[in-house]
């Protein structure tokens, strides 16, 4: 049971990185990787999801609008099935994510895909986020209100 939870957490963490990576980056990492035999269980397809929002973050939910998503499913020859969902219409990216998800579940490849693909991508993502945060922080303006006297 805990093993299953561990794996689920690992897949979640991998998905959080992969969804934000560029398709080209994932492909480049996977190119250096000795991929096992696999096939497309569900070829990449595009669709829409309804985004829901809440007024002020905790008000009544409303439908904000729709966003395009792509999804795919890949099965390794050893039986593991990976699923990939990502915003946008990049079907190839969804397929690569699904492939990585399947690899993460595989006993033989779980460690190596984490080391060679996901960890470097996570590092890149952290750097990019830090950079954006630093650029934003440089232009920070503090507002304050002087208390006006009565009357």
């Amino acid at each position, binding site marked *: 049971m805990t093993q299953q939870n561990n794996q689920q957490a690992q897949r979640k963490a991998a998905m959080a990185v992969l969804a934000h990576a560029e398709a080209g980056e994932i492909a480049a990492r996977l190119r250096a990787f000795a991929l096992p035999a696999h096939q497309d*269980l569900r070829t990449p*397809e595009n669709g829409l999801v309804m985004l829901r929002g809440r007024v002020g973050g905790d008000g009544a939910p409303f439908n904000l609008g729709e966003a395009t998503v792509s999804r795919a*499913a890949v099965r390794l020859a050893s039986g*593991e*099935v990976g699923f990939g969902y990502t915003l946008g219409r990049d079907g190839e990216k969804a397929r690569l994510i699904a492939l990585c998800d399947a690899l993460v*579940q595989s006993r033989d490849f779980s460690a190596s895909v984490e080391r060679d693909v996901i960890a470097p991508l996570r590092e890149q993502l952290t750097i990019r986020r830090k950079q954006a945060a630093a650029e934003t922080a440089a232009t920070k303006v503090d507002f304050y209100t002087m208390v006006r006297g009565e009357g």
Partner: protein
Amino acid sequence: MTTIAELPPGFADKVLSAQSTFRSVMDAMARPGSVQRIVPMAGTPGPMMRGVAAIALTLFDHDTPLWLDARMAESSDVVKWLKFHTGAPVIQDSSIASFALIGDGALLPALERFALGTSEYPDRSTTLILQVDRLDAGQSFELRGPGIDGVATLRASIKPADLFERLRVNETLFPRGIDVVLVADDAVVAIPRTTRVVSKGS
């Protein structure tokens, strides 16, 4: 673990395969009795024939309730595969099904148990997809009706043997009625509700 070890894949090329399969079924419906081929291939779960699998991937979606006969329903592979690839709900009540998959013709229930459509919406009837043994040899049948110039002959070995007698209800029900698609491996023959079939013996 989300391993679905025995789940066969869908179409390799979704759009073109679905278009080509749709064309085959449409031609079969337009020319009752003619044998059409289904070219694109997908994985086939359990007792499902490849033609039926291709038709399922083409026509079924979350808006088309499905009814499965005992032969299909007993195979969890079929149910899982249909759910994964088509998203169509599998229902127990055959009278509201859009499609019925019949894996073994001997198990075909009385046709009155399927949706026959209404006079306002005759299209809301169940389309039977029936797996048969052969569509190139066997008993001879004479077909007449729209889409046929004079008489068409069909040679087929079909279970249940009295299928076409049972389909006579279409004569009195019109415009309501049941459409049937017969599938043997990759061959498809459609018997729409307007077609009248007479058995000629073997």
